[in-house]
């Protein structure tokens, strides 16, 4: 069951596999950022779990790698 108190927390973070997927395709953070229309810093922050992407960006990331959003982002502990 989703803990909604965590969803609304300012400090809420999620585990993701963006780095692993990016490295599988031999992409740099800059290249992935260019493909998605965001900066390298944003990709880095997402990979490190410091930044939660918006829904459109999360969907864009998932679609770029041909995965579902749930496969890429997981609310489990890092």
């Amino acid at each position, binding site marked *: 069951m989703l803990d909604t108190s965590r969803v609304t927390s300012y400090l809420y973070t999620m585990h993701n596999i963006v780095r692993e997927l990016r490295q599988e395709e031999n992409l740099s953070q800059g290249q992935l950022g260019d*493909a*998605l*229309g*965001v*900066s*390298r*810093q*944003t990709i880095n*922050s997402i990979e490190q779990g410091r*930044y939660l*992407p*918006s829904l*459109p*960006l999360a*969907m*864009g990331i998932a*679609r*770029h*790698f*041909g*995965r*579902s959003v749930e496969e890429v982002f997981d609310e489990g502990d890092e």
Partner: protein
Amino acid sequence: MKETNDTQGRSAAPYSGLKSVRTSRWVMPIFTVLMGVVILVASWMGGNPRDGLFGLALMTCLAGAVMLGGRRSESLRLMTQPDERWAGIDRAASLLAGYVLLTLVIGSWIYELSQGQDGDPYARLMAITGASYLIALVFLRWRR
């Protein structure tokens, strides 16, 4: 592209709506130079053209530094063309600056009152700020 388990036939094509977040890279530099022109005109009207020219030169140099620096520094480039993360950082920083300014205005108003003054113009600034906040609340409640 890896195959997905999506059975609803959604396209795996990259999401194309993200690029609309970015603004033109000329907006901030042009606005900065225009502010310099406003400073020049106001200073000239006040009898201080030299100060106005200095202000215009300063703002022009600032705009140029951000434009040129943006070619080497991603952080500077993001100041003119923010992505969603940088836009969020900008909003948070603006909010903090607003709270600091508001605290100073309220503090100055209270100090003026304690000195037997009428609190002008701080009282008017607080009234305008409060009204703006309420209008924004109503508008955003309606739109979101």
